[in-house]
């Protein structure tokens, strides 16, 4: 099948008018049901050419199923998948110009690292010289030069991860799908790989579609994020947008700490009924009775518990009007003992009105 290796720029699809570039991935009314269970419920989404796009959500939210439908491992029950404007809904995985990095890496255990990485080139009949050169290039990109002859069984988790990445990138796909690729790594390695993945994406300029349940990962790496919940997308936006202006209660709770004002607390603080959210680091702890400015909200309460986190301290404050708000403060001058002594203290919470977001139920 035709795989144009080097010159992506020339074949980049344009819409008929020739103005705006066509989306790298476009999902139209995508539905996936397994018997009575609905895994994905009507998803419409556009992923732009060259962007680092994350699909964030808890397990069972439909993000992996959506990814698998883009890759071609699952056929949608309804809807269409378009890659660069082409309908690929009915095509097999090997007929789509996308490659996947699997959660369990899925390296071929009987092949060496070099054979693993060169596999996509081998089955597409790329000449041997060209193949060897590209395998070496790909391994250099993931900093594994000289590992060609090892077997996957002889590598560490992080190294296997890199091989899986090289194996996908060597084919120069137009879209790279990553299914929780860092899930099996320990924290330190994960943070290193996050930075590295981001760099590689910039270097190769391929569209990355990244599935994760880790909000920090999504926030640090992505150009845009889609937050999945129960087979639907609750919000699509840039990390700052999703974090600072969550559209729904679910997004507010899943991306960051859930800090909700509802019912009587909403009426007492904001002045009207509804559901409001404010990020914990936006709130100041003041003494009771201190005055708030015109552009600020204030709420009285008592510190119910204190969690010392090293660089920060997290205070759980029970509000007089009902409910609870979490406040995080950097430990700029406070010591751990001072922070812990705050427990039981009456406080007034003050924050800017502009940092308060009204959210929908779903």
């Amino acid at each position, binding site marked *: *099948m035709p*795989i144009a290796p080097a010159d992506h720029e020339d074949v980049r699809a344009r819409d008929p008018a020739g103005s705006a570039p066509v989306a790298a991935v476009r999902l139209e009314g995508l539905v996936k049901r397994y018997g009575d269970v609905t895994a994905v419920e009507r998803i419409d989404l556009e992923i732009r050419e060259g962007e680092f796009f994350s699909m964030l959500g808890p397990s069972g939210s439909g993000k992996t199923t959506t990814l698998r439908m883009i*890759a*071609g*491992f699952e056929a949608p029950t309804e809807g269409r998948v378009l890659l660069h404007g082409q309908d690929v809904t009915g095509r*097999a*995985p*090997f007929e789509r110009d*996308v*490659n*996947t990095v*699997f*959660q*369990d*890496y*899925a*390296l*071929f*255990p*009987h092949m060496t690292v070099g054979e693993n990485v060169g*596999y*996509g080139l*081998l*089955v*597409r009949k790329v000449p041997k010289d060209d193949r060897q050169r590209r395998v070496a290039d790909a391994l250099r990109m993931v900093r594994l030069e000289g590992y060609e002859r090892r*077997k*996957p*069984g002889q590598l560490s*988790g992080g190294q*296997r991860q890199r091989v899986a990445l090289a*194996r*996908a990138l060597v*084919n120069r796909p137009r879209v790279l799908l990553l299914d929780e690729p860092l899930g099996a790594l320990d924290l330190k390695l994960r943070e290193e790989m996050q930075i590295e993945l981001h760099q590689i994406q910039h270097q190769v300029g391929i569209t990355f579609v990244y599935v994760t349940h880790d909000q920090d990962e999504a926030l640090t790496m992505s150009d845009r994020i889609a937050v999945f919940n129960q087979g639907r997308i609750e919000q699509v936006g840039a990390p700052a947008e999703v974090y600072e202006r969550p559209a729904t209660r679910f997004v507010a709770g899943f991306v960051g700490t859930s800090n909700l004002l509802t019912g009587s607390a909403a009426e007492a603080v904001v002045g009207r009924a509804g559901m409001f959210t404010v990020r914990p680091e936006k709130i100041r702890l003041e003494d009771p009775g201190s005055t708030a400015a015109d552009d600020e909200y204030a709420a009285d309460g008592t510190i119910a518990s204190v969690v010392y986190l090293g660089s920060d301290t997290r205070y759980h404050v029970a509000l007089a009007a009902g409910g609870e708000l979490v406040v995080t403060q950097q430990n700029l001058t406070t010591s751990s003992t001072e922070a812990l002594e705050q427990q039981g203290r009456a406080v007034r919470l003050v924050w800017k009105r502009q940092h308060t977001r009204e959210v929908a139920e779903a």
Partner: protein
Amino acid sequence: MARRVVGIATIVVLLFLYLPILVIALYAFNADRGQSWPITEWTTRWFGDALANEGVRDAFVLSLEAAVGATALALLLGSLAAFAVHRFRFFGRETISFVLLLPLALPGIVTGMALNATFNTIGLKFSLFTIIVGHATFCVVVVYNNVVARLRRSSHSIEEASMDLGADTWQTFRYVTFPVVRTALLAGALLAFALSFDEVIVTTFTAGTDQTLPIWILTNLRLPNQRPIVNVVAVLVILLSAIPVWLSQRLASEGGTPTRH
């Protein structure tokens, strides 16, 4: 103290299992025709006699043909069943292992009777073919078990990864699926071969007048004249059963190291 008791018990059990076999092997080198102990004079002439014996040669060839045939049939059916169970969800999937295992567990005499009656009913003449079918009934499961175990141990997504990287169904089988199960197939085949090669009971019901090597032993055991040759043949049967089993165990444990930690 406890360690020593366990150690001694282990030695006793091993002796109980293997001493009789060792004695048979020693008798094969006994110059005396009777099975007298201790052995006073050693010889290898019985090996020459056994090889020159036409009955032994015919039985050996028949056993080999039956074992190869049964193994081939078991490879085909066992691996097909294993792939089906691994890849698809269907009615009766959970019971397949049991259904396949049953012929191995059922008394050979029952399987033999049943096959004998069936062959008679449908008018099939007893021949090499009926022996192969009889042996395949219990050989299929050893191939199936080996392949299913290997497929379970290997990552589910490697076939998807292969397709994702551009390989079609045939390339995926050739480069990924088959190499991963190759040693499991070989291990299953060796085990099936060994099972078939020394089988007696089912064979007596499905062989008609032909003699496989174990059947030859059974019929010649009573003839004092043949005693030394019987011992030699017994050693041969032991080797041809034990070596494949040993190889099979090595293959089953070394091959297909999973990528997971």
